[in-house]
């Protein structure tokens, strides 16, 4: 089944990938190993999972103001998610993506979806993010 969701392109860009969905917020600093892309917050539900190349769907970031630096470094190192979808604007994550674009001319699109649309995305859905903030969701058969 294919659906189309409309979001706010906080950091506009195009990307596609398989959804990695977190129910809980995550701090990218202390929560993400930028060399490997692994979620290393051992209290987090996704501890041990790899964000690289996935469309990372999380309610918002939290905690450290170093999270933007970690997103920037993961973009430089090639371990970043393909895109990030949140349910509210996360200024710290937006910053990491904007600085990456200024410094390296490449970035990670960030889209904010309304709560209901945000919650409709399931782990494993194939997502396409467009520069205008549209998100196309392909759910695997039987989902």
């Amino acid at each position, binding site marked *: 089944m294919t659906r189309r969701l409309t979001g706010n392109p906080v950091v506009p860009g195009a990307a596609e990938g398989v959804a990695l969905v977190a129910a809980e917020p995550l*701090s990218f600093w*202390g929560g993400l190993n930028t060399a490997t892309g692994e979620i*290393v917050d051992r209290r987090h539900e996704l501890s041990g999972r790899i964000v690289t190349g996935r469309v990372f769907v999380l309610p918002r970031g939290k905690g450290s103001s170093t*999270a*933007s630096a970690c997103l920037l470094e993961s973009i430089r190192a090639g371990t970043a998610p393909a895109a990030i979808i949140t349910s509210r604007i996360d200024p710290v994550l937006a910053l990491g993506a*904007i600085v990456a674009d200024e410094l390296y001319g490449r970035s990670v699109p960030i889209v904010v979806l309304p709560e209901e649309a945000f919650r409709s995305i399931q782990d494993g859905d194939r997502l396409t993010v467009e520069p205008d903030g549209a998100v196309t969701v392909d759910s695997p058969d039987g989902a």
Partner: protein
Amino acid sequence: MPLRLSDTDRKMLGGGHGEGASLAMRIMVRWAQACGADELMDVAQAHIDGCGLLSEAGLEFAETLAGRGAKVAIPTTLNMGPLDLRNWRDFGVPEDFAAMAIRQAEAYTRMGCIPTWTCAPYQGYLTPRFGRQIAWGESNAVAYANSVLGARTNMYGDYSDICAAVTGRVPRQGLHLTRNRKGQILIRLAGFDPADLGDDAFWPAFGHLLGPLAGDRVPVIEGLPADATDDQLKALCAAAASSGAVALLHAVGVTPEAATLSEALQGEEPAETFDIRPADLEAAARDLSTAEEGAPLDLVLAGCPHFSFAEFRKLADLVRAAGHTARMGGKSRVAFIVITSTQSHALALRAGLPHVLTDFGVRITLDTCMFHTPMVGPDTKVVMTNSGKCAYYAPGELGVKVAFGSLADCVRSAALGRVCRRAHP
């Protein structure tokens, strides 16, 4: 809505204040647009968090800005850095790491930042005044500045902090505005004995509990003592900003925008009310530990956020007392590191405190953070700390098991070589 810019903003954007300022303003403008702000506003001082993490991208960004001639436009302090600039060799930090860290430090000082190198800038130089609009990074410092000092800042993530310092401008939104500083939920402490709140483990444990409870809402706390110390509030803010996104809390009768409950709530009703009981605090303290009681201990870490003068004095009293207890032997059996700023350390030196700690086996490191400088080796398996923030991040950042306890628990455990707490908090 499009972002409105002043003539000065436009001039800076167009390169009229140099290439470095132009890059900083371009990032500030794009970021303000991403955040949905409608204009920029002036800030009077800045505190830079972006100087703390050492990464190739972070160094490249700092050197790019500095290389293009960017200078800070407002008084700007520096957070802890990735290196003890004086003693790094004593802590086994590799040369190549140190060389990179020194380049990063030079880039920030070249831009005119004041080399405070502390994550507790509110206990050092240039403490902001009540009501002042500032741009601070470092989550614990942001929570403290807003809550305890009543200065006004959002959490300025790396590298918006240096862009704010160079441009003197930030998006006009969030906690800079009175309406957004209104308390939204009420947390009532119920059934606590005053002695519970006198235990220094209460504050980080309570902060740890508060973070997820508050989410992104401003919490108002009723029941904290009016004579809460700066260090207790520091521990509370640091833990709440780690387990959650708390950037402002009000404590009725304690913090400056909360003389009364009604003032903290700006005359409105709280969206939700929670009663916190001693059993909740015990659960929060347990949740901060991943190591078992009695586990063999490798390292004690204190000074997250950076140790204050008062904390030096308290630790000196504790280790002196341990020296008088035959069972403890008067020496730490494990590595014991205290992390602080040159400013607090200078005061402690004048009071003759560091040698008391050194005799017990404590090593003091300046300017840095155990999470940002490679001073904790792979042989370290179990760490004990009195910090909720350190306990929260240590398992992920250091790959260790962690035990949380009061400073007294840390000293006792160090002397015994194993995790040994009394029931807490």
